[in-house]
């Protein structure tokens, strides 16, 4: 015969019953499925072991490799000059949600808690325009006609140990870093945030019906930093200022005319990269493209710029004494000084 719960309860008396209640409460407290499946809070250090040049010194002009751009996106990107971000009204265009995927600094993540429940995760980092708040309380996304704030609007849910985020309501922006690849305000992001041991992986999948022909996928790794040493780098504002006084109040917008960008062939000339790959056609992202290059691609005879970037990061000496590295970027005096230090 099975004992019913009330029977069990009656069988227990006074102090025992209280002990049982307390014990059951503890069991429930420690074993109930948590709303957050993984504790993400903390500081994370950057690991720039992919796309170092883009994330460090910045991409070469005319380098759209790895991008699935539409003709509109390519045309707009080729109008870009390095003077364009100097205009006050365009200085923050490079700062949009998830741009930290292409930048060189760390992250800080914390939770917003209401009555014991995580209602939002907040990510601050090298985004320069506020934090990204990921709402976990089930609220819907606003109307498509609602205001697009600088950080967009994000909601999230857990799938196992992965926080799945959807970001909408972003502003028009430059994506990637420093070469004018555009992202429209129609962009939507699916973001997968997974932590395995001390490694945090953020994968962004960007859909943009205007400037991309297929989702643009990027996955990056950060490492948990218990010392929080990345905190000083977690800037959260984009400060604007007039950088080219001669342009002020003139109505001039720095740009190249269509077909007149002198950097359009930079990757072809310097790295023998085929033009269609440099210009970000989606079909160049897949293995079959490589086979098309067999017999026609010849590697450059030597590496002449940013060849050992990880070592020369921040202009500091690497941990490899006596290394002769063809950095091609550091001023001679600084290079000699660093060599002497080693």
């Amino acid at each position: 015969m099975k004992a019913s719960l009330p029977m069990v309860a009656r069988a227990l008396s006074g102090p025992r019953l209280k002990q049982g209640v307390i014990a059951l409460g503890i069991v429930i407290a420690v074993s109930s499925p948590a709303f957050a499946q993984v504790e993400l809070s903390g500081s994370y250090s950057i690991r720039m072991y992919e796309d170092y040049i883009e994330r460090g010194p910045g991409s070469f002009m005319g380098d759209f490799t790895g991008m699935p751009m539409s003709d509109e996106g390519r045309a707009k990107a080729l109008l870009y000059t390095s003077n364009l971000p100097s205009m006050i009204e365009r200085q923050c265009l490079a700062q949009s949600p998830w741009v930290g995927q292409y930048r060189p600094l760390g992250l800080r993540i914390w939770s917003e808690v209401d009555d014991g429940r995580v209602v939002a995760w907040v990510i601050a980092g090298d985004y320069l325009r506020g934090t990204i708040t990921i709402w976990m309380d089930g609220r819907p996304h606003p109307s498509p006609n609602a205001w697009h704030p600088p950080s967009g609007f994000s909601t999230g849910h857990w799938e196992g140990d992965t926080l799945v985020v959807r970001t909408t309501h972003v502003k028009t922006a430059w994506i990637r870093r420093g070469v004018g690849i555009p992202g429209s305000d129609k962009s939507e992001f699916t973001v997968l945030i997974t932590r395995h041991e001390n490694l945090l992986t953020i994968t962004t999948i960007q859909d943009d019906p205007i400037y991309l022909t297929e989702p643009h996928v990027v996955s990056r790794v950060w490492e948990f930093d218990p010392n929080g040493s990345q905190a000083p780098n977690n800037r959260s504002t984009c400060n604007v200022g007039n950088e080219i006084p001669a342009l002020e109040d003139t109505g001039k917008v720095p740009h190249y005319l269509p077909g007149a960008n002198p950097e359009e062939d930079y990757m072809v000339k310097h790295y023998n990269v085929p033009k269609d790959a440099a210009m970000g056609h989606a079909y160049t992202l897949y293995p079959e493209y490589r086979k098309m290059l067999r017999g026609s691609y010849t590697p450059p005879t030597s590496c002449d710029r940013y060849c050992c970037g990880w070592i020369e990061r921040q202009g500091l000496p690497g941990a490899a004494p006596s290394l002769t590295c063809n950095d091609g970027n550091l001023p001679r005096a600084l290079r000699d000084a660093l060599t002497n230090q080693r």
Partner: protein
Amino acid sequence: MSAARAFVVLAIACLVLCPAGVRAQRRGGGPPAGPPASPRAAAPIDLTGQWVAIISEDWRWRMITPPKGDIVSIPLNLQGQQTAEAWDPAKDEAAGEQCKAYGAPGLMRGPIRMRISWADDNTLKVETDYGMQTRLLQFASAGTSPARSWQGTTSAQWLIKGGGRGSQRYGSLKTITTNLRPGYLRKNGVPYSERAVFTEFWDMHTLPNGDRYLVNTNVVEDPVYLQLPFETAIHYRLERDTSRWDPTPCDARF
């Protein structure tokens, strides 16, 4: 509320909320009677199918062969850099080592398609068309270590979450590869040694539109050629059209 009523309420709450594992432990500290499910039957995610690498990162270093000495991004130490500077593909060809860039740590960053299938209940098989390589991810011990190889010896384990009281099971795969022949992290001779340990976390995600992505977060640790662990994430998309599978042999130059 009386203490008796509180007990009943808490007990019911525990039945609803406690994970199956907790209740199983109360019943006797282990899984239900009977043989444990095989790794294949216990798989929390289905990794099988044909996956294609999307080369949206490090395009110039993954899709094409960079020039000798281009070691950017990789935390080599001095010995590693000197070794990379000495890269000579003709020498590799003469030694019959055209596949040095196709060992597991280099292979996974390559422009690959891979087919994942179950070789048996304890072994996931990963085949690539790029270099025609085969990795075996073994959930059970392989026993004695075989000779070193490009793909080494890989141990695998599921990291499983959820599944209690009919809730959805989630999980990922963790693999550790050792026993590697010395090879290249990059086609232009950036080296790893036979002491390298290659750790991978395999996560699969299905988007609302049905697209499936595999994200491989991995770490190469090598006391011989690296100053620090080389940590990256690589992403792949599941292909339903498998017609682009195109096996090609190893090539030391292109």
